[in-house]
Each structure stands twice: as structure tokens, then as C-alpha cells.
């Protein structure tokens, strides 16, 4: 509103008049000017924009450092759930499944409540990656939209699995065939529910490969790494086809390879994300 602009406080930089197309408030550095074209390999020059009084990276660092805390909860919940070590077998009879839930009711409940609370904490982390993607040498926001498009569904698929596990443990003495049904729904949703994670890794790999600059946001090997993780997640999609062997939901490929791949992805992406945020921060300090 004209006439109501905030005046600079003591010690603050005076507010520079805004350009017609300027994006205000979130971008301090735009390494990709709008005239960038593929094939133009010149080093990106940071362009100084007016910085809002509260630096955006402060909030991003808070989200980032919440990740280790959340990861500890994820790991704790993983060990607390009695059906993961070793994973329950799909060959179990309905009676055995019912006995399992009757014997371990509390641990199933507490671990799945923890997962239900905290699995969606993945979304803010993915949004930090989306924010880093703004700095990539892309002409359009398409790949960011692709990542946002799968970022919600990936943890929500897992959240749905926790609901089935909790339902199985809610009345462990119901008919065993119904407990087995909930158990099957939970394990199939958990194991096969990888399409959004596969797509996430593919989108990130493409985004990183297309960020063709001397100093890309994420190094090229991070793209290869995402492709590798996407491939590691693929066998889990076939868990419905068999009750035994490496593809079964408790098998080497569908359980161990898939879950280790997800854990590894989180660790590696957290490290490269942290480095990227630190790099932005040093640029921000120079500009201020």
C-alpha cells in the first residue's frame, strides 16, 4: 500500500526501491538470471537484493537442525516396533498374527503413535531441498513443482500404514482373520508404498543433472546417488507377488535394501543440504 511502507529502524539498511518484477522477501541470491540459457556456462554472479530484516536462512537452519532430533525419534520407533527386528513374515497364519498383536500390543501402539506423529516431519526437510532448487540453473519451476507434488504423498502413504498397524493393535482379540487383514494392509502399504519416493529421487536426479554450472547447488554425484536410491527402492514394489524370498515384504530386497536405502538417502541428503545452506549463508553475510 503506498505511503505505508515500513521505514528502516535504527541500524538497518535503508529500503531500496523495488523493481517492477522483483520478488520480495525470499530470494537474496539469484544465481540464475532470467536470461540464462542452457549452454551458457559462465559462472553465476550473485545479485544483491534487498534483504528483509529477519534472514530467511535463520528459519531454514531451525528446520534443518530439527532433522537430527526427528531422526532419533524415527530410529527409536523403528527399534520399538516389535515387528521390524526381524520383520514379521507374510507366511504367518492368522492365529499367529493375532497372538503377536495380543502379546505386543503396547509396543505396537507406542511405536506407531511415534511414527504417526513424526513421519510427516519429512515434509519440511523436502521443502528445504525445494528452496535450494530455486538456485539451480533451470528456466522453469517445473521440477520444483514435481518434487512438491510427491513430497506430501510420500510420508502420507507411510502414515496410512501406521493407521493400519494401530487398528490391528486397537482390538487385538477380534477375529484373527481381521487382525491379519489389518496386518496385511499395513505391511503392503508400508512396503509397496514407494512410488512417491521413487519419483522424488528421479526428479531430484534430473534436477541436479540439469543444473549445469561450474558450481552447482548439489554436486553431480548427488544426482547419481539419487538414481541409485530410486533403483534400490524398486524391488519393494513387487512385495505383493510372493510370500517368501528376497521380494517378500520381509525379504532382503523389499525390507532391508529398501529401508537401508531410505536411511542412507536421509543421511546423504542431510549432509549435502547442510553444506548448501552454509554456502548460501556465507553469500548472505557477504551481501549484508
Amino acid at each position: 500500500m503506498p505511503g505505508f511502507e515500513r521505514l528502516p529502524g535504527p541500524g538497518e539498511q535503508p529500503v531500496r526501491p523495488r523493481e517492477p518484477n522483483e520478488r520480495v522477501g525470499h530470494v537474496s541470491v539469484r544465481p540464475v538470471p532470467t536470461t540464462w540459457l542452457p549452454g551458457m556456462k559462465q559462472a553465476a554472479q550473485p545479485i544483491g537484493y534487498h534483504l528483509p530484516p529477519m534472514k530467511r536462512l535463520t528459519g531454514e537452519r531451525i528446520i534443518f537442525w530439527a532433522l537430527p532430533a526427528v531422526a532419533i525419534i524415527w530410529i527409536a520407533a523403528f527399534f520399538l516396533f516389535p515387528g521390524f527386528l526381524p520383520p514379521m513374515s507374510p507366511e504367518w497364519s492368522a492365529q499367529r498374527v493375532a497372538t503377536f498383536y495380543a502379546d505386543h500390543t503396547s509396543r505396537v501402539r507406542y511405536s506407531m503413535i511415534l511414527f504417526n506423529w513424526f513421519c510427516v516431519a519429512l515434509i519440511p526437510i523436502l521443502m528445504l531441498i525445494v528452496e535450494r532448487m530455486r538456485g539451480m540453473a533451470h528456466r522453469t519451476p517445473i521440477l520444483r513443482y514435481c518434487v512438491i507434488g510427491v513430497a506430501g504423498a510420500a510420508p502420507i502413504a507411510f502414515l496410512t500404514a501406521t493407521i493400519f498397524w494401530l487398528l490391528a493393535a486397537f482390538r487385538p482379540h477380534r477375529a484373527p482373520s481381521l487382525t491379519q487383514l489389518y496386518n496385511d494392509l499395513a505391511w503392503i502399504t508400508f512396503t509397496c508404498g514407494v512410488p512417491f519416493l521413487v519419483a522424488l529421487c528421479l526428479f531430484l536426479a534430473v534436477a541436479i543433472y540439469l543444473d549445469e554450472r561450474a558450481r552447482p547447488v548439489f554436486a553431480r554425484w548427488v544426482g547419481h546417488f539419487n538414481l541409485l536410491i530410486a533403483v534400490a527402492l524398486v524391488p519393494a514394489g513387487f512385495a505383493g507377488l510372493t510370500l517368501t524370498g528376497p521380494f517378500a515384504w520381509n525379504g532382503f530386497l523389499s525390507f532391508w535394501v529398501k529401508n537401508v536405502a531410505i536411511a542412507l538417502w536421509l543421511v546423504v541428503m542431510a549432509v549435502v543440504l547442510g553444506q548448501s545452506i552454509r554456502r548460501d549463508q556465507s553469500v548472505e553475510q557477504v551481501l549484508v
Partner: protein
Amino acid sequence: MRRPALLDDPKRELWLAWYATIGFYSLYTVVFFIITRTQPPGKPWYTPTQVVGWFASNHEGLLIGFSLIFILGGLSATSIALITYSMRRMSVSRAFAYSYLIIYAVSAVPGFLFICVAMTVGAFRPGRDPEILRWLYDLGFLSFSGTMGVFLIGSLIWMAAILLDKNRVFPAWFGYLNLCNALTEVVVAPSWIFHAGVFAWNGVIAWWINVVVFGLYTGAFIFLLRNMILREDFGTGPLPDLLPEEGRRRVLAEFMSP
């Protein structure tokens, strides 16, 4: 190895998303219509014993087909991203684009993951109590055709954006086709109530008419998104008209020259 020409195309991200969209809808059609035979859907009036027979006759198809969706289903995000981009290119508020993106992003779980899970769980253990198998059968088909609000509100948002837009990104007739698509979600609501007849989930109105409208709509928007990419000038004003191929090549060459 020679560098593929696509990598030097300024519209490469748009083209990649467009080809992935084609790939996703082809996979979707093949899986639902051919491999799993869940389209046209099974009969809503089947008795539990008939449902057992249905699962038995589609056993391998269901498990293999939905495995493919479990792996590649996330590529649906590419068409959502392109449509979101189309609204960002319009002269309307970003609220339209972001609403569309979030509606479609969260609907993937009830809209297509549920049918994959329910049918896989059903086919996975054929010896289950027939009543439970029918419960899974209902869950699969009704979650699939009965997740309605996404297409209803999503199409209305896209329609409003197209009709308000001054940048000529989409023709007005496609705006109205969005309304037809939204109406299919209105007439599918009775499939939650009727077990047989034109309104049942496999009925003439709730399935046959809807699938024709949805097919035309999807074909139209894939074609129009291609035109949008060809016309895209990376400006903020009205999109230029679609030139013949010779003209497009000339414009691209001028655009690429330093």
C-alpha cells in the same frame, strides 16, 4: 557421446515433464484396462463367492499391474506440475496454481494408492474369508471412483483460471471442458449408494460416460499442454500464436543467439 539436442533446448524441463506425462498416462491405461482389468470395473452386485472368483481370475494381472504402479505411479506429479505451470503462466493469481498443486498432490493416496493396496492385499492371500475379500474389493473400486473432490474442485479451479486469464494460455472451450470433467464427479457420487443400475460404480453414467469424458479431457489437455510449451516465450504477457514448424525453428534460433 554426442550431447542430445534436448539438453540445449531452453524448454527442456517442460518437454521432459510432458514426455513423462505421456508415459504416465500410457502406463496407467495399460495397467488399469489391460493388465489388471480393473477398468471397466468389476460388478458391484457380486456375492462374496463371485468376488473370490474375480480375484482368482485376475490374480497375476492384479499383482503385476499394481506393482508397476507402485514403482512408477509417482510420475503422475509431472502432469500436475505442468498444469500448475500453465496457471503460473496465466494472468491470474498464484493462488490458483498452488491450490491445484496441493489438491492433486495429497489426493494421490486415496485416489490411486488405495486401490493398488486393496487389490494387492486381496490377490495376495486368495484363501481369505470371502466376506473380507469383498470388503477389499469394495474398498478398491469405491476409493478409486469415489475420490471425487479432487477432480471436482481441481477442475473448477483450472476452469476459473482459464476463463479469467488474459494471456491466452488455453482456449475458452477447454475451460468449459473442465466443467464437464467436474460434472462427472458429481454424477459419480450415487455410486456410493447404488449397487446396480446406471449410477452404480460400473453403470452407464457413473462409469461409461465418465470414462469417455475423462479420456477426451485428458487427451485434450495433453495436446494443449504441448501447444503451450511450443508457444512459451518465457515472458509474462500473452502467449504468442502457435507458428508453423519453420517459424518455430527460426524463433528458437533467434532466441538462442547471444
